[in-house]
C-alpha cells in the first residue's frame, strides 16, 4: 500500500446534485448489497510504463482537478475537502486488482470516493492504473473523463487548462431560478405520464422466486449488435433507440401491457455546462410507448420523439419526482412505478448497414451465462448493454422467473434478427 497526496483545493458544503441524490437513494435502498454500484476502469499504459512516483503524482493532480473525487457525504449532502491522502494498492493483474478493489461498499462519510491501484511489472514499473469509483463521484461518462485526464497527466504532465464543471457549482445552478424552471418542467412530465401508465410493469408474481431472489442472465450476442446496426441505419436512428424500442416491445409481450413505461438511465450531458464533469449526472428518464399491436418497424418511428422526451425528463430533481409520484398515488389509490429500467453503457453508436450473411453467421456465436445473484435490488427488471454486445437482464425472480429471463434474452435476439433480415 502506498499513497497519493493532494492539497490546495477549495472546501465547502452543498446539497446533493440531482444526480447524486438519485444514486444516493438507490444506494440506500440496496444496502447491504450496495457494492452493486461500485464500478472500475483500467488505464493500460502499454508501451509507456510509468514510475510509481509519477503515477502517484498524477492521481494526486486528478483529485485536485475534480472536486467530486474529494467530496464525502455529510448530513445528506456534499462535504468538499481541500486535500488529503489516497491509499493506493498494488497488484500484478489488473482484473484481479479491480475485482478486489470493487468488492466492498464504500464508507460514504469517511472514505474517499475513489480507490486507486497500480499494477507493477517485475521491474517495479507501473503498467496499468486501476480506478474504482463510488457511484456518487462518477458515472460511466464521468469515469471516462477522469481516465482521459489521468492519461494526459501521465503523458504530458498536465490536464487541459479549462476548469471542468464541479458538482458543488452544478448543485447551486440546480437550486437557482433557471434550475428550478428546468426541474418544474420535468416534474410536470413525470406527473402527467404517471397518471396514465400501468401501476407497474411486472405485476404478476412468478411463483418461481429463488434464494437469493435477484439473478442476472447475460447473453453474449454479436448478432444483436449487428442486427441493431442494420435496423438503425435503415430507419435513420441509433442502435440505442432500436434496442430500447425492442426491449419495450418485448416487455409489452411478456406482461400484456399496451402502454409500456421504461426508465432508461440517461447520461444528462447534453447541456454545455455539464459535458466534461467528473460526477454522477446519470438519472432515470421516463420512456413511454403505446405499443398495442403495432409492428416493430412502426414502433421505431414513434420511438424517436418518445426518446427525446425521456432524455429531457432525466434531468430532474428526485425530490420533485417523489412528490409528483405521491400525488399520483393518492389520486389513483395505488403506487405507480415501472420498476423496469434500461441502461445502455456503451459509448459509441456508429451503426453500419451490416450484411445479412454476417448477421446469420453471428447467431452461432451467442452464449448465455448467469454471472450474478444477490439479495437486494432497487428494481424488478434491469437491462444492461455493454460491448458488442453483452445484453444482460437483472431481475427479481419473484416477478420474473429465471426461465422467463432466458426467454426474454433469446426473444430479443430473435426479434432483432428477424426485423433486420425482413
Amino acid at each position, binding site marked *: 500500500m502506498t499513497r497519493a497526496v493532494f492539497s490546495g483545493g477549495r472546501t465547502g458544503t452543498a446539497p446533493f446534485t440531482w444526480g447524486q441524490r438519485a444514486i444516493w437513494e438507490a444506494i440506500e435502498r440496496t444496502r447491504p448489497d450496495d457494492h452493486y454500484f461500485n464500478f472500475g476502469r483500467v488505464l493500460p499504459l502499454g508501451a509507456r510504463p510509468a514510475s510509481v512516483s509519477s503515477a502517484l503524482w498524477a492521481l494526486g493532480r486528478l483529485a485536485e482537478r475534480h472536486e467530486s473525487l474529494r467530496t464525502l457525504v455529510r448530513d445528506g449532502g456534499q462535504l468538499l475537502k481541500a486535500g488529503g491522502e489516497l491509499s493506493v494498492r498494488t497488484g500484478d493483474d489488473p482484473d484481479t486488482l479491480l475485482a478486489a478493489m470493487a468488492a466492498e461498499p464504500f464508507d460514504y462519510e469517511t472514505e474517499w470516493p475513489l480507490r486507486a491501484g497500480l499494477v507493477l511489472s517485475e521491474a517495479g514499473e507501473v503498467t496499468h492504473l486501476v480506478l474504482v469509483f463510488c457511484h456518487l463521484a462518477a458515472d460511466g461518462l464521468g469515469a471516462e473523463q477522469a481516465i482521459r485526464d489521468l492519461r494526459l497527466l501521465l503523458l504530458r504532465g498536465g490536464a487541459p487548462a479549462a476548469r471542468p464543471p464541479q458538482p458543488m457549482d452544478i448543485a447551486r445552478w440546480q437550486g437557482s431560478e433557471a434550475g428550478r424552471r428546468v426541474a418544474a418542467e420535468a416534474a410536470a412530465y413525470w406527473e402527467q405520464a404517471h397518471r396514465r401508465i400501468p401501476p407497474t410493469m411486472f405485476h404478476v408474481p412468478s411463483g418461481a422466486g429463488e434464494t437469493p431472489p435477484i439473478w442476472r442472465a447475460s447473453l453474449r450476442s454479436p448478432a444483436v449488435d449487428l442486427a441493431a446496426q442494420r435496423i438503425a441505419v435503415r430507419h435513420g436512428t441509433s442502435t440505442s433507440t432500436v434496442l430500447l424500442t425492442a426491449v419495450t416491445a418485448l416487455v409489452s409481450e411478456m406482461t400484456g401491457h399496451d402502454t409500456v413505461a421504461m426508465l432508461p438511465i440517461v447520461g444528462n450531458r447534453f447541456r454545455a455546462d455539464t459535458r466534461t464533469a467528473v460526477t454522477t449526472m446519470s438519472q432515470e428518464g421516463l420512456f413511454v410507448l403505446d405499443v398495442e399491436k403495432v409492428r416493430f418497424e412502426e414502433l421505431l418511428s414513434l420511438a424517436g420523439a418518445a*426518446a427525446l422526451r425521456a432524455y429531457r425528463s432525466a434531468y430532474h430533481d428526485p425530490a420533485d419526482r417523489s412528490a409528483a409520484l405521491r400525488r399520483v398515488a393518492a389520486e389513483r389509490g395505488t403506487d405507480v412505478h415501472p420498476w423496469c429500467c434500461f441502461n445502455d453503457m456503451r459509448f459509441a453508436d456508429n451503426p453500419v448497414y451490416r450484411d445479412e450473411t454476417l448477421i446469420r453467421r453471428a447467431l452461432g456465436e451467442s452464449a448465455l451465462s448467469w454471472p450474478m445473484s444477490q439479495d437486494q435490488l432497487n428494481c424488478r427488471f434491469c437491462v444492461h448493454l455493454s460491448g458488442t454486445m453483452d445484453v444482460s437482464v437483472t431481475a427479481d425472480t419473484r416477478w420474473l422467473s429465471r426461465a422467463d429471463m432466458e426467454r426474454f434474452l433469446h426473444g430479443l435476439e430473435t426479434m432483432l434478427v428477424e426485423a433486420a433480415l425482413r
Partner: protein
Amino acid sequence: MKERLAELVSESCDGELTPADVLAATVPLAYLGVTSLAQMRLIDAVEREYGVEVDLSGDVTFLDSVDGLAAWVEAARSPA
C-alpha cells in the same frame, strides 16, 4: 441563420458531419448520423443561442433539417 444552425448541428454530433454536409443534406439529418443524443445537445444549443424553448410534447420533425430548424426558430422568436 442557416449557416449558424448548420454549425450547431455539426458541433452537436462532435463533427461527424461538417456544416457543409449539414447544409447539403437531402435526407433527414437522423439518417446522416444525428442521433437522438446529438439532437438533445442541439436543442440545448439552439435554446441558448436564440433564447427560445423547445417543447418536446409536439411535433419535433423540424430537428431533421436546417430549413426546418430555421423556420422553427423564426416562428418561436416572433411575438405570438
